[in-house]
């Protein structure tokens, strides 16, 4: 049992049929996903909207059944041994303002801890500690309906950890939170794993920096398929063999040409309206194409304000894999 991975899936597939035949087509939210997450890992799932991240977490947390394939959590089949799975897990979805509005924050958290059979005294102490760490202690006796969205989300994260799960699934836990709140949650996750080396965190996120900073390993998922799965370092190394180039230029008329430029693996750009600059970012097969790009930019009558070879970021990896950025 102890040698079992925290999560293991075999050809896990989930299909959503449209409600009415006329309305839309079948969605293949997960397509033959093979995944193995070890105990003690902080595992990130990164993917664009509709990639299948939430679907995967729902299956792992026994909310949804697979269409085919297998999923095991702590070595237990989520389809048939869901009762045993539920003893070991918890799940939190960010961006969702759930909770019983008539109860106080403490009551809400306490009630859920009781569903997990945690001794009342232990639970209350833990709730106090966590509310303190999350900066919510002054809201302890406030009715949940009076909390702000972010405060509710913090409460929900606490709800996830307060039951002391072996494996916790966090679906975009920092979605929409301000910088401070996000940091509090990230710090908590890291400390929790440090204190409990056998516990496992599986989280999805939209924030590349968050995934990069937090995760031991990351799976990049798109259209229900896992495109890559490795440590942030190794993922970035895959891109480091290429040349990553960033360039600030003025008055660029045509950006589309660079997408299909010879030697360019991926290309993104952002407009900096204030300075009147366009920031270009290229991942190139090698350095030989750089001069062609420079002349193409100059050929459009633009001026190059800066030009840098940079370290690849996780975003570069993502763009290369998925073919587009996250925003």
């Amino acid at each position, binding site marked *: 049992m102890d040698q079992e991975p925290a999560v293991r899936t075999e050809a896990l597939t989930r299909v959503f049929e449209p409600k009415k035949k006329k309305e839309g087509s079948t969605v293949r939210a997960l397509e033959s996903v093979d995944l193995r997450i070890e105990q003690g890992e902080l595992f990130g799932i990164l993917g664009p909207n509709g990639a299948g991240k939430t679907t995967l977490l729902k299956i792992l947390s*026994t*909310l949804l059944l697979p269409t085919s394939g297998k999923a095991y959590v702590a070595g237990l089949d989520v389809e048939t041994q869901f009762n045993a799975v539920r003893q070991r897990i918890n799940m939190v979805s960010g961006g969702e303002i*759930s909770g019983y509005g008539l109860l106080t924050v403490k009551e809400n958290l306490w*009630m859920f801890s009781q*569903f997990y059979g945690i001794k009342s005294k232990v639970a209350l102490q833990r709730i106090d500690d966590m509310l303190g760490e999350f900066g919510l202690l002054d809201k302890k006796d406030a009715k949940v309906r009076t909390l702000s969205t972010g405060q509710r989300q913090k409460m929900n994260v606490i709800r996830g950890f307060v*039951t002391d799960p072996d494996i916790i699934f966090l679906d975009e836990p920092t979605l929409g939170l301000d910088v401070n709140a996000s940091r509090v949650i990230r710090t908590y996750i890291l400390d929790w794993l440090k204190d409990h080396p056998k516990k496992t965190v599986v989280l999805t996120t939209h924030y590349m920096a968050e995934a990069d900073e937090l995760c031991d390993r990351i799976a990049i998922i798109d259209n229900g398929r896992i495109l890559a799965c490795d440590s942030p370092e190794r993922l970035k190394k895959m891109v480091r063999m290429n040349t990553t180039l960033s360039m600030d230029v003025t008055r660029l008329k045509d950006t589309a040409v660079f997408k299909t430029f010879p030697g360019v693996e991926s290309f993104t750009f952002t407009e900096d309206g204030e300075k009147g600059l366009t920031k270009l970012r290229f991942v190139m097969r090698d350095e030989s194409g750089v001069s062609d790009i420079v002349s193409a930019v100059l050929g459009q009558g633009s001026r190059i304000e800066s030009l840098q070879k940079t370290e690849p970021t996780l975003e570069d990896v993502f763009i290369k894999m998925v073919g587009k950025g996250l925003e």
Partner: protein
Amino acid sequence: MAVMNDLRTIKNAAWLGWEMEANWADPFLFATYSIVKPISATLILVFMYMIVTGGNTDNAYFSYMYVGSALYMYIAEVLFGVTWIIHDDREHYMSLKQVYIAPIKFYAYILGRSAIKIAITTAGVIITLAFGVLALGVDISLWDVDWLLLLGSTALGMSCICVLGLALGGITFLTARHSIGINEGVAGVFYVMSGIIFPITALPTWAQSISKILPVTYWMDSMRRALMPDAMAELGSVAGVDVTGLSGISDLYIMVYLAISTAVFFALSMAVFKYADGVARRKGKIDWTSTY
């Protein structure tokens, strides 16, 4: 151990139910909602009865109808209550999935929440009955009540109603808030078929055989026997005819029938619940919210 867990779940769910229902911050609203509303349903019935019969409430049948209507509150409140609990948990509080993935038996949770519904409804039932006795001459006398029968019948009846609520709870997993009609249908079947306001002998023969399968029929009859033995004896032989259709069955047997049909419905309800639960998980309905 498993039993202890279930008891704990029931206790916690009941606690939650109490916190949610008895929102004492507004006792007036609470009283209106949980007592005045159910009583008014009975009073409307009384009013109609008075018009039809020219105000004659001094007979065994009026007591029969009045008590039936008062006790029906339990069925209506619990059956609708369970549905609302699930819809509200899912769509309003968005907590259904959190409760659902907790290591508890979901039906123990529903039982706990229903128990509070029952407790609150009891206040309404008692007040309604007291009003009937004091103001309208309903034939209940504390000295004549068969307390043992009342106790047994109440215990079995409440279990039975919870069991029915459970099946509807499962079905509610699959329905949207606006399709609450199933409960109205089920509650309606009991209203007509179980001798709530008119005896089952008023039904066609084929319908009577359905009545005799339904646990609520026996529950109603045994409750009336316990509460108003005189009136029931009178109705058992009106000019030699058994109006209730059940007076040939002894008190003991009526309890046995109630127990058996509750057990059968328990098995059925569990099957319905398990099935609905499976479908809900397959279709992803646990955290689904209806779009209007």
